[in-house]
């Protein structure tokens, strides 16, 4: 019984770690050169409000979506308000918005759904004054799950759009 609790705690710790980790793996190969500023160490201090670390963790680099939806929730809009302000304050950064879907659905449909989600975020940021030239979108569909269990606790984390910032050109 005791071992079981311990095991559960370890699992919890692991999943928490997974949440704070940048979710783009294979950045060099897949990342369109956008990953340069997002790795740990290069992000600067979380206490520095101009740092990518601050953007990723304090403001929040991602918003979540309901099943099959690309409509922004009130919570998502408040995160995006923060993202827009940060991007307007830190004009040297570009942003790539990555849309993702959970594993329920076909590969093709999920790619298109991820594109809708990424675009919803882009449009919101543009509506808040971020120049469209500083924003790009891409969809990974269900190719890049962040949480890997097969139930809603994981699916809800995977239905996301992540704003990945980088210095200079995209």
């Amino acid at each position, binding site marked *: 019984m005791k071992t079981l609790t311990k095991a559960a705690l370890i699992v919890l710790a692991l999943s928490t770690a*997974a949440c704070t980790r940048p979710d783009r*793996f*294979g950045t060099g*190969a*897949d*990342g*369109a*050169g*956008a990953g340069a500023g997002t790795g740990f160490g290069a992000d600067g201090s979380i206490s520095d409000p101009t740092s990518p670390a601050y953007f990723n963790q304090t403001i929040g680099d991602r918003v979540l979506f309901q099943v*099959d939806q*690309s409509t922004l929730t009130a919570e998502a809009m408040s995160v995006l308000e923060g993202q827009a302000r940060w991007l307007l304050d830190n004009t040297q950064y570009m942003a790539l918005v990555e849309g993702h879907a959970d*594993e*329920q*659905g*076909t*590969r*093709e*449909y999920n*790619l*298109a*759904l991820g*594109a*809708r989600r*990424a*675009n*919803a975020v*882009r*449009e919101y940021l543009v509506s808040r004054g971020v120049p469209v030239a500083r924003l*790009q*979108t*891409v*969809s*990974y569909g269900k*190719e*890049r*799950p*962040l*949480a*890997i*269990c*097969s139930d809603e606790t994981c699916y809800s984390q995977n239905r996301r759009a992540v704003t990945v910032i980088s210095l200079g050109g995209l």
Partner: protein
Amino acid sequence: MIRKLIALLAMFVWADAALAQSGPLRLTITDGVIEPLPFALPTFQPEGTGAEEMAANLSQVIASDLIGTGLFRQIPASAFISPYTGFSQPVAYADWRAINAQALITGAVAVSGGQVEVKFRLYDVFSGGELGDGLRFVGSVDGWRRMAHKVADTIYSRITGEGGYFDSRVVFVAETGPKDARQKRLAIMDYDGAGVQYLTDSGTLVIAPRFSPSGDRVLYTTFESGFPRINMIDVATVGRQQITTAAGEMAFSPRFSRDGNQVIYSLSSGGNTDIWRTDLLTGQHTRLTSAPSIETAPSFSPDGSQIVFESDRSGSPQLYIMSATGGEARRVSFGEGRYGTPVWSPRGDLVAFTKQNAGRFHIGVMRTDGSEERLLTASFLDEGPTWSPNGRVIMFFRETQGAAGAPSLYSVDISGRNLRQVPTVTFASDPSWGPLQR
């Protein structure tokens, strides 16, 4: 109506009535009970030295092809009364009848100078004669498996009257690594999982390869540039090039036209995904759908006149058919749940699809007017059907549930029978079944 349906989904069965009359050896499509046809295949006779192993291997692959269809059953050699004395010796039909071998397959194999020669004969045991002429194939030692598949295709065709599918290849995505760090490579293999070759390395995310109708090229979606784009790869040279599509943020879900000169695909722009066609010869782009909904997964009819695709214009993903030139589309799926990845059958009469309903996924087929839908499989996640060259079998991938979940390839008859896993060394997804090889 039900009877008609059963007749349509029936498999080939041995016509028992004809047997008693010593009629021709023939599996015909009927709604009878499924009883695999028993055959005897004494290990092919090695001719000359050094052919023993080749003869055994060829015999094994031929038998495996036939058994794998679910239509045939091999009688073990231990049951044989008549020892197999030689390819040229007269057949003791009574001895084969006594063990109820309805077909007898005999052969001889010679190996010399890097070449294999295989000869075979197919006998209709109960009518006491040969079914078709004996045939001889010659090829390189390296290509011995193809020769076995060609022999098996010939036997299958002679007995069923249908085209074979054994001498064919499948392009697919080989997957390795954990679920949240999956690496994907394009790979090609024989239909039975043998002879895997990799076409790309694992450094770039690739998805959904699609064979050209002649099998010489493969279209696929690559994230090489960081954004989904369509590449074309030449199977023989493994040379690849990006297809210049119409301008958009993402291009994906490509398929060839029947003549291999056009590509239909999905293009996303401003978050909206529509279907486009690009002519590979002229470079001309044509927009085929124009709706705020998602339009994706297009597949040509075999005559090239129509396109079946997936759209959520009704509120959930459903199947639609439109002219190959675009325009009005008619909805064809009306059952419960969500439909995707439609693929037109080689015969033109059916559409295979992925269906998601009540938390389960299915591979199914329906007629092109949406009638007579039948689901062939069910699991946590079944997806991405592809047709065998003769339209009798569908391959797809099945992904298991949970954190350790991973995909494998499966095949199933369009009757829903004979579900089998296709052996692969790595995890595997997104199969596309090529044509019979020449």
